[in-house]
């Protein structure tokens, strides 16, 4: 697939550029700050743009940016899309992947046309993020990088690039550090050239049911990725020596990787998610991401999660 990257602008350039008729879509959590800095009309996301609109600025998390990428491609392909991530993790602001929720089912779209034209770096938006959200966002990036690296569809060249990225991620603290923006973009861009695996199969299957069953908990993609990365990596390692071999062949210290995954694990989230994992296991097995896991995931492997075999 042709790889296209968005231009990267600092916020100052966005503020000084002639953008023509412009609309801004934001998530509520950052609307106050965007309204204070961006002197363009803020519109309700996914409503029709004013005639003559040349630029759409989207500020938010991966979900809003992905939806905007799909909306722009289908509804306003001539409009320039400028993406500003309010938090790292998804890498959506620079990626040809767009994940949408269609009737409760996560659908993965992959097309260079989804890449925004410009991404703007505005790291201050993430300064007020809670430590828990920051950590979960790191889990999102770790899941992309690790599953992309282990994917059976990854070439050796791609694994080499992902190994370099993983090494640099090991040096970053799990938590609020704006260097995660660039790491997340790289993880998403590289993963888009191979595939993801069981962590994403679980996240895509359970996100809707968990959000419906436990709305008070704040379930989202990043929470599920963070919580299941360690259990899944442990399962992959148990099932086949190739997982550890791949890390070794690329100069990665497996124990450090496993410890990073372990540090993202959330006990309470796991306990809350497990009954729904049992209930939806057949759907997890059929998820396209699960089917490109690095080792074959079988019906009986649910027992690994039930017994918490990874924590033994």
């Amino acid at each position: 697939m042709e790889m296209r990257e968005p231009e990267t602008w600092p916020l100052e350039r966005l503020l000084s550029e002639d953008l023509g008729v412009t609309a801004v879509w934001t998530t509520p959590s950052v609307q106050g700050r965007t309204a204070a800095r961006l002197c363009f009309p803020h519109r309700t996301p996914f409503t029709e743009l004013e005639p003559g609109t040349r630029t759409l600025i989207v500020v938010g998390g991966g979900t809003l940016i992905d939806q905007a990428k799909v909306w722009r491609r289908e509804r306003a392909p001539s409009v320039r899309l400028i993406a500003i991530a309010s938090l790292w993790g998804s890498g959506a602001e620079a990626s040809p992947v767009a994940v949408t929720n269609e009737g409760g089912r996560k659908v993965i779209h992959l097309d260079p046309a989804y890449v925004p034209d410009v991404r703007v770096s505005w790291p201050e938006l993430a300064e007020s993020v809670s430590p828990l959200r920051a950590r979960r966002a790191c889990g999102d990036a770790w899941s992309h990088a690790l599953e992309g690296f282990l994917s059976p569809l990854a070439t050796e060249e791609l694994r080499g690039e992902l190994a370099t990225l993983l090494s640099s991620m090991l040096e970053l603290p799990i938590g609020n550090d704006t260097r995660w923006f660039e790491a997340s973009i790289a993880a998403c861009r590289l993963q888009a050239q191979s595939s993801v695996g069981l962590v994403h199969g679980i996240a895509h299957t359970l996100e809707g049911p968990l959000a419906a069953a436990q709305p008070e908990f704040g379930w989202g993609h990043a929470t599920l990725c963070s919580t299941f990365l360690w259990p899944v990596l442990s399962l992959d390692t148990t099932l086949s020596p190739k997982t550890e071999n791949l890390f070794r062949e690329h100069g990665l210290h497996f124990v450090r990787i496993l410890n990073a995954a372990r540090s993202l694990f959330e006990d309470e989230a796991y306990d809350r998610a497990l009954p729904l994992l049992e209930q939806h296991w057949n759907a997890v097995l059929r998820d396209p991401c699960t089917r490109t896991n690095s080792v074959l995931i079988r019906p009986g492997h649910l027992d690994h999660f039930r017994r918490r075999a990874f924590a033994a």
Partner: protein
Amino acid sequence: MEGNRSKFRELLLDVFLLDPSEFRWDLTRSQIDTWDSLGTVSLAVGIQDVFGHHLTPAEATGLASVEDILEVLRRKGVAFGDA
């Protein structure tokens, strides 16, 4: 060798998410709705996990039946007890 045949059958049941009652040795790709491109990836991963043999992309995409998979594995030295 009979063990290999049994392992192979279990593998296909899990790769293609088949009920044991659905399995037949003469199944073709068109009769298995989960044998799409992702099913082919999953099959290649499973064969490597279970039999330790790597399928080339040409081998994997050229498979059109259960018998084809058996034949590829026989060529790689896996014995199924069927002379």
